[in-house]
């Protein structure tokens, strides 16, 4: 799930927001590093950073309005295009999906049926999955929800010429023998990969075994869409509700109000407590102002939260969080994202050089650039802490690296070898540039010369994927569902036919035997196996060096109850929230 617009750039955005000073309104571009951040942030990442804390838990009273303070408009509310975390939080209040990722703050994520009665029944080869729908499901206008409405939602995700921002798993994974391209181009064609034998049954046919079908179908493309109400791009502004809340009013860039959907039956939905009567979102508030208002906790802001990355918290606000009255309203949680430094194996061919680079980098200093322990902590693996508990006997790779780096050991390992590498940095990201300079200094001490190449922000990832990528660059990954199969394959795996690296494998590892191993482990739902492959790759091939696992700190209004950070979206969780009124 994207934490903002730039898919794998999300971690940059997360911490950047916290660092951006009042002179910048960028969400995705870097802010300046301040040395004060580390000293003002708690020393250790764990409890001092408030990870996993739920503010005033156990609240069950319905009623009241939650005010959401936001900066820019969200991109999409149409489920087919809703693939960004802040609109995701709103999305699951408005529409239901076939399955549901239960990610109660502070608890291990789990997959639950949502519109479906139960989790799917697979065929023996796990290519075909059958789901039975609950009874009594209705859209906001009282029309019954059938399997055909869910299929139509999936069909829309194939119209990739219109809907370009959503998740692509349906087009990537489903059987599609007749090159189905959405419901508009050729309405006579049928999507063979989804069958609806009756109004209460839906069958998904994948091109390859998909043991994690239940997780895959929790994404918004399985939200039902009534065909009669589909007005293509304009559906973005008035998606029809199948969940506990419907849109009462929406003025893009100004405000969004959600009120109860009277045709939602709580008995049919065990996943959504739906405590508040309404959510009132105000858009267009400057990020530092949001932080200031949440901390000040005045008037209607006592009912307020934000969906901005890093809770809109600014570096200058960190000391205020230590104030007991504010700290009682402070929570934090790991996001699905891990940041790493790509070491392109096609460019830096000597594994010892890659290892030496990893040894020399001071990742603790990078954490400081990111804003300190509250905003993230040093990590050795690409497996986010938010899902480590889902991997049996999880272990991070044994890299033998010091968080503060060891340039002397790296230098000794290079044994006098002269090395020059080109480090790519997005030209508009102050934070990335600061990290690049930090790495340049670290590697200089190890005898490695770093040339910093500026890449236009808009073509940053295109350059990393190109035939002439930089030797080294920052990237990151945010899983779409909390399993290893949504983590290892994109970062270290191959393309569809396993002949080459995939588009998100920026390290460009080309060991097809490893690609096959990863694919086999995915087919077998072997998360431990995937973690072993990950560890083997990270500790022996050194295709990347993980740096920071990012957090989403938040201060909420004093009337907000059950407030915690959701695992899947890495934002303050609206689904479980209540408000004292």
């Amino acid at each position, binding site marked *: 799930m*994207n934490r903002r617009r730039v898919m794998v750039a999300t971690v940059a955005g997360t911490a950047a927001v916290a660092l951006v000073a009042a002179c910048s309104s960028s969400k995705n571009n870097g802010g300046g590093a301040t040395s004060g951040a580390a000293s003002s942030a708690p020393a250790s990442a764990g409890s001092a950073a408030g990870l996993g804390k739920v503010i005033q838990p156990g609240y069950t009273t319905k009623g009241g309005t939650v005010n959401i303070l936001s900066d820019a408009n969200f991109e999409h509310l149409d489920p087919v295009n809703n693939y960004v975390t802040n609109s995701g939080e709103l999305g699951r209040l408005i529409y239901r999906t076939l399955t549901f990722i239960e990610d109660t703050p502070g608890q291990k994520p789990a997959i639950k049926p949502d519109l479906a009665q139960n989790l799917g029944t697979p065929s023996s080869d796990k290519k075909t999955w059958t789901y039975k729908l609950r009874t009594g499901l209705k859209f906001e206008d009282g029309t019954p929800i059938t399997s055909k409405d869910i299929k139509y939602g999936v069909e829309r995700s194939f119209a990739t010429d*219109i809907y*370009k921002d959503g998740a692509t798993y349906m087009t*990537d994974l489903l059987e599609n023998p007749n090159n189905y391209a959405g419901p508009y181009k050729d309405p006579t064609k049928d999507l063979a990969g989804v069958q609806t034998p009756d109004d209460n049954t839906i069958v998904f046919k994948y091109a390859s075994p998909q043991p994690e079908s239940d997780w895959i179908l929790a994404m918004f493309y399985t939200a039902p869409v009534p065909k009669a109400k589909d007005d293509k791009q304009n559906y973005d502004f008035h998606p029809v509700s199948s969940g506990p809340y419907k849109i009462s009013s929406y003025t893009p860039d100004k405000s969004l109000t959600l009120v109860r959907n009277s045709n939602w039956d709580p008995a049919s939905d065990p996943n959504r407590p739906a405590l508040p009567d309404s959510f009132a979102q105000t*858009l267009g508030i400057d990020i530092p*102002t949001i932080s200031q208002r949440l901390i000040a906790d005045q008037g209607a802001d006592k009912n307020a939260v934000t969906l901005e990355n890093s809770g809109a918290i600014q570096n200058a606000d960190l000391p205020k969080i230590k104030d007991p009255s504010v700290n009682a309203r402070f929570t934090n949680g790991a996001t699905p994202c891990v940041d790493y430094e790509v070491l392109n194996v096609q460019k830096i061919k000597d594994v010892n050089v890659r290892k030496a680079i990893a040894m020399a980098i001071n990742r603790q200093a990078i954490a400081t650039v990111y804003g300190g322990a509250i905003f993230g902590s040093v990590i050795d693996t690409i497996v986010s802490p938010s899902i480590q508990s889902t991997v049996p006997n999880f272990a991070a790779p044994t890299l033998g690296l010091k968080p503060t780096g060891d340039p002397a050991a790296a230098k000794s390992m290079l044994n006098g070898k002269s090395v020059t590498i080109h480090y790519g940095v997005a030209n508009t990201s102050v934070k990335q540039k600061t990290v690049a300079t930090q790495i340049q200094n670290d590697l200089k001490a190890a005898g490695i010369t770093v040339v910093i190449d500026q890449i236009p922000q808009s073509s940053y990832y295109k350059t990393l994927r190109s035939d002439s990528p930089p030797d080294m660059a920052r990237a990151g990954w945010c899983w*779409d569902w909390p399993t290893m199969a949504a983590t290892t394959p994109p970062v270290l795996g191959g393309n569809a036919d396993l002949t080459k690296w995939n588009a998100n494998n920026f390290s460009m590892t080309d060991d097809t035997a490893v690609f096959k191993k990863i694919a086999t482990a995915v087919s077998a739902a072997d998360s431990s196996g995937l973690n072993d492959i990950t560890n083997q790759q990270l500790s022996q091939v050194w295709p990347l060096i993980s740096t920071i696992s990012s957090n989403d700190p938040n201060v909420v209004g004093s009337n907000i109850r059950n407030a915690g950070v959701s695992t899947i979206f890495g934002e303050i969780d609206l689904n479980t929230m209540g408000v004292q009124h």
Partner: protein
Amino acid sequence: MLRFLIRRFLALIALLIATSIVTFLLFFAGPSDVAANSCGKGCTPERIQQARVALGLDKPLVVQYLEYMKGLVAGREMGPPSGRYWCSWPCFGTSFQNNRPVWDIIKTALPFTLSIAIGAAAIFLIFGVGIGVTAALHRGKWPDKVAVAISSLGVSLPAPFIGLLFLWIVVSKWQLLPYTSNTVTSPWNPDPWTWFKNYLLAWLTLALIFGANYVRLTRANMIETMGEDYIRTARAKGLPSRTVTFKHGLRAAITPVVTVFGLDLGALLGGAVLTETIFSVPGLGRTAVNATFNQDLPIVMAVVLFSAFFIIFANIIVDILYAVIDPRVRLN
């Protein structure tokens, strides 16, 4: 006068076309690859190409520009092959981000910008000129010294500093005024007092910065004008001091101020970027900033065109006012 107006109107059109060409080339022919950047996790070359077609970026630049201009005056059809739709005139395109018509976005943002610009301009013009005249008439005395000191301070302080200071002290600490609300769009919505309270700090921030220039400019011009022979003659004729100062002195001294005011007001109507950002006012400036960071080129282009229009239009008004204020200036 009519010939003048026609001539200037035609010049306005020509300038706007020139601005549109430069802006279009700057944004659409630049190195930015919007289609590639909008491609999500499942990015493939085919998807990038689809995005390029959907955004209309696959056509030659000249065709893109001509279609854009056609849309402005007559509307045009837009969108990907299976999702074509009609964009009515004035069609500035649709947002790359959420497909919302840019004209709707501009219409939403404009009332906020008007509220800020008009209120701030009234304050900095009235107080700037008033303090400047007072300083000039009391040259070397304490009112002059205070005015010069305040204007120096206003010129020196950046908008973010003043704005954030106001927010912190007046709103957050003393709670004398509310945080700016984006539901207050005009003196009629919801009422003049709420409107006044909502924008007062933004006005004062801009007034401090802009007003300082008016104090200095008015003061300097007044001092110069009041030393002219015709002022001495007027005094010698026995005209009252007020008539000499305001009818003969200020009227001559204020023409350069009017020029600057025209430019300032035009620029403000194009969006007070920093002030709108600090005070969370979703006007044209803040819209442009957000659009720039999101590479939402149609919005950026539209805001630039609007800004250019306001500045050029303000200049025409200034030229007309010149003739009214100073009889020595004739429009022909």
